[in-house]
């Protein structure tokens, strides 16, 4: 609370960020000390404005101000004709921008146009790609499995996705924290259906223990669970090694 009270002066001189200001206004609702101070200090701050000498205003100023205001209105809202519009805009720009800021504005504008152009190009490319994909297949995940490790690969985990690509089905398995394999050893994926196993391929994890495998399922093939074994050598038709992962 004490901390917030320190912001009282900054609040009065309007030097708080929007966020800080909102926070202080919350604080003000509950802090009696600040409530007592805020009004009189604000009036004091505003009273500083009277510390100036009144001056005679040049007679021409009113026309300058009114023309400035109403000419801008005309040039921006209802230009009478093309040439006047050009002159008006020129006037508008010379009034609004110093040569430096005009230069900066021009550079920024070019940048914006450049970005816009490359953006449009990109959008075209993407549209073309999307069309290509759409014309061939739409990919959709139809089922997700969680895989967890056991035995020698107790720390391993993974996910499997059954992906529908047009009329074919692809199984994508992603594995993490797999113990590394030695020599001929491979991990082999088995699809289980009614106690029967069918191989869905073998893989070796990378140095970080990550593994990925995709398998295109034969037409109308279905399965209930996924099991992974550590095989002493690849290309077995039935598992010989220990089961190390399975669906949960």
């Amino acid at each position: 609370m004490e901390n917030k009270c320190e912001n009282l002066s900054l609040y009065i001189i309007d030097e708080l960020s929007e966020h800080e200001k909102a926070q202080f206004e919350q604080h003000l609702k509950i802090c009696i000390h600040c409530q007592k101070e805020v009004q009189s200090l604000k009036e004091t701050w505003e009273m500083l404005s009277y510390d100036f000498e009144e001056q005679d205003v040049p007679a021409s100023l009113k026309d300058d101000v009114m023309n400035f205001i109403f000419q801008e209105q005309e040039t921006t809202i209802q230009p009478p004709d093309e040439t006047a519009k050009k002159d008006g805009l020129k006037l508008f720009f010379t009034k609004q921008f110093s040569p430096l800021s005009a230069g900066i504005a021009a550079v920024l504008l070019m940048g914006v146009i450049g970005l816009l152009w490359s953006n449009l190009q990109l959008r075209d490319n993407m549209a073309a790609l999307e069309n290509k994909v759409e014309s061939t297949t739409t990919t959709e995940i139809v089922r997700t499995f969680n895989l967890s490790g056991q035995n020698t690969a107790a720390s391993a985990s993974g996910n499997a996705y059954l992906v529908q690509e047009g009329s074919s089905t692809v199984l994508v398995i992603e594995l993490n924290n797999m113990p590394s394999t030695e020599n001929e050893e491979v991990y082999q994926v088995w699809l289980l259906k009614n106690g029967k196993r069918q191989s869905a391929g073998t893989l070796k994890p990378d140095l970080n223990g990550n593994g990925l495998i995709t398998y295109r399922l034969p037409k109308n093939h279905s399965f209930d669970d996924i099991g992974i074994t550590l095989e002493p050598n690849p290309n077995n038709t039935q598992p010989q090694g220990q089961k190390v992962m399975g669906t949960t």
Partner: protein
Amino acid sequence: MKSKTDEELVALILQNHRPALEELYDRYVKLVYSFSLKMAKGDSEKTKEIVQQVFLRLWTTKQTYNPSQGKFVNWLLTITRNIAIDIIRKEQKEHVNIQLDPQEWHQMQDQKTEGVPEQVSNNLLKQQIREAKQNLSESQQRLIHLLYWEGYTLSEIAEMERTPLGTIKNRLHQSLKKLRNYMSEELGGVVRHGK
């Protein structure tokens, strides 16, 4: 138009009523102009720019004045000050950042008190605020001047003064309190004391 209150004029401006803007101009241009001239340190071109922007903002952005926030004059001067700071500081930033040494500060004060003809309606208030400022220490006076009239932020002032920001914040708080206490003594009811 002449019999309308400020609030009524602001309401008419909302409906794009040009004579209402002209009436507000006639009423307050002296105030806005003189205030801007001080902010612009006597630069009449810059002063004109500020005055134009102030009335343009009144006309276009339709900032609504809410009487509960205080006097119209204070509201108008707050807008004027903000615009003036924008215009002046924008220009300053294009130049090298200004360091102020104590000598320059004295010169600045001399300029300020140079004999400009006095013909002020808010004479009393002005006199009081000046007297109140005399009660501030030199560093407090300098802070108020840099902050209010030069439009520097507290961090910029801390940097210029080579003083920690916390000290500057505290100095500001002390300065405002001192000014308030002095003025509430002198003016009685004009500034309501917080107690």
